């Protein structure tokens, strides 16, 4: 599949062929629980939702392991020290400035965003910011090799 082919496909069309939801974790999940979920689902990204299906924030595997394995870091800032001592939960370390896609965008625009922000699982939101699904980078790569 070439770049032109990706440009012709919209995010909505992609979701019809590859319906997928991102990994969702609870706002009060501990680092152990999130890491375990990420490993079980073989994912590098997890998201937190509110009660109205709106995405609150993104958690990357790197961010979670950074907190989980902080005792192996020989240098800590004051911020990292407080975080280490107080055992943070998901909503405290999530990134509320997560990147996302809209259903009417083309795949071309989305791939660029995904690569730039190093996100494997990109959430797709409707106009009211409700979660519609997600785009997995692995499937995009697999499709591009066909």
């Amino acid at each position, binding site marked *: 599949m070439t770049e032109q082919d990706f440009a012709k496909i919209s995010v909505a069309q992609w979701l019809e062929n590859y319906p997928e939801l991102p990994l969702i974790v609870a706002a009060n999940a501990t680092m152990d629980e999130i890491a375990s979920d990420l490993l079980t689902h073989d994912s590098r990204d997890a998201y937190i939702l509110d009660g109205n299906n709106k995405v609150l924030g993104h958690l990357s595997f790197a961010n979670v392991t950074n907190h989980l394995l902080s005792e192996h870091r*020989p240098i800590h800032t004051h*911020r990292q020290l407080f975080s280490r001592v107080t055992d943070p939960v998901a909503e405290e370390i999530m990134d509320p400035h997560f990147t996302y896609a809209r259903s009417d965008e083309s795949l071309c625009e989305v791939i660029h965003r995904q690569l730039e922000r190093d996100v494997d699982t990109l959430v797709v939101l409707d106009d009211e910011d409700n979660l519609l699904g997600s785009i997995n980078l692995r499937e995009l790569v697999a499709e591009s090799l066909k």
Partner: protein
Amino acid sequence: MAITQNYMNSPLLLLGILLVSGLLLSLLASRLNLPRIAAYAIAGLIWSEDLLGGVFNFDMTQWSQSLTTVALAIIAYTIGGSVTIEQLRRLGKVITFCTIGESFGAVIAVTVMVYLYQPVVEGPIWVLAIILGVLAATTAPAATVAVIHQYRAKGPLTTTLLGVVALDDVLGVILFSLMLVVVTGVDLSQAVMNSGFEIIGSIILGGLMGWLLAFFERKVRNQTFLLPMVLSAILLSQGLSELWHVSPLLTAISLGFSARTVHQAGGERLFEPVEYLEELVFIIFFTLAGAHFKLSVFLQGVDLVVIYILARVIGKMVGIFIAARLSSAPDTVRQYLGFGVIPQAGIAIGLALSLLNRPELHDIALLVLNIILASTLIYEILGPMATRYALIKAGEARQ
């Protein structure tokens, strides 16, 4: 000769020389397993007035003041934003009590012992005693974390120690800024009035700037803008605090705390880029402190170095012992935590350097800086040894 003199008084050249000397000596120190902080200080010392600085006629008085102010503001901002209200709540009774105990224990012990000793100094002795006392509150988390990491330590003492060394710096910087406000007042009634204005003014200014920083940060997607945004907010708040005669240090702490609190989740983004500057700030602090070393001033205060070191250790030990009993801390914490809070380094040096910017403290600022520099170098040797002893005795060292 005139050309050489002009070059040697170029602030950029002098700063470059200090930084390069510090970095080169720290590389050498790391090869010899010596503390890098001592290397930075020695690099500065080489360029002090008594050594090469005198030969080349270095003049650092003018430009180093602005640099120290900005560097200290960066540290105060990161410290202010290092903890959230929720984290403070979760720290627990033991960490909170022990921090208050060891910080105030050191402040009281050093203040009282220096005052009772009645050293011969220019200016009022009580001011010198209070300044040294307040400077005694801070510790050196980097040295403590390095020992904990080296010994793979884990347990109640380790956790409490990590919490205490982080929190006492927050408390130490706040106490220092409050103390400065009070001791630089003209008379008691005016000092009380000015203190109230300075403290409230700083909190309002820092709080408002922090709110604005968090607000605009939410609008920015491009991460490369974060560092310039934060530095701009720090510089602007420092400028405004000078203009409105409120405490620059307290303003920077309030700025960091407000930005983190308003931003809530993801507020770490406002601090990560600036934290990369911490090492640079500490090189500046130590090389500048070393460059301000003066043998005659040091010899005048060598007895005060001994008093400061002993009183601070005793104050921290006694403070922790009392606080640990009051908070029903585990036995290992009560018995050994005091040994872990002995190191002292960068923040104390930065705070002491900032005194040089205060004309009203001119008589004692250089003496305080020389005392803190000398004691820091001694703590750099004693501190990690004491921490290691505590972790081993508590049975929390794994290696």
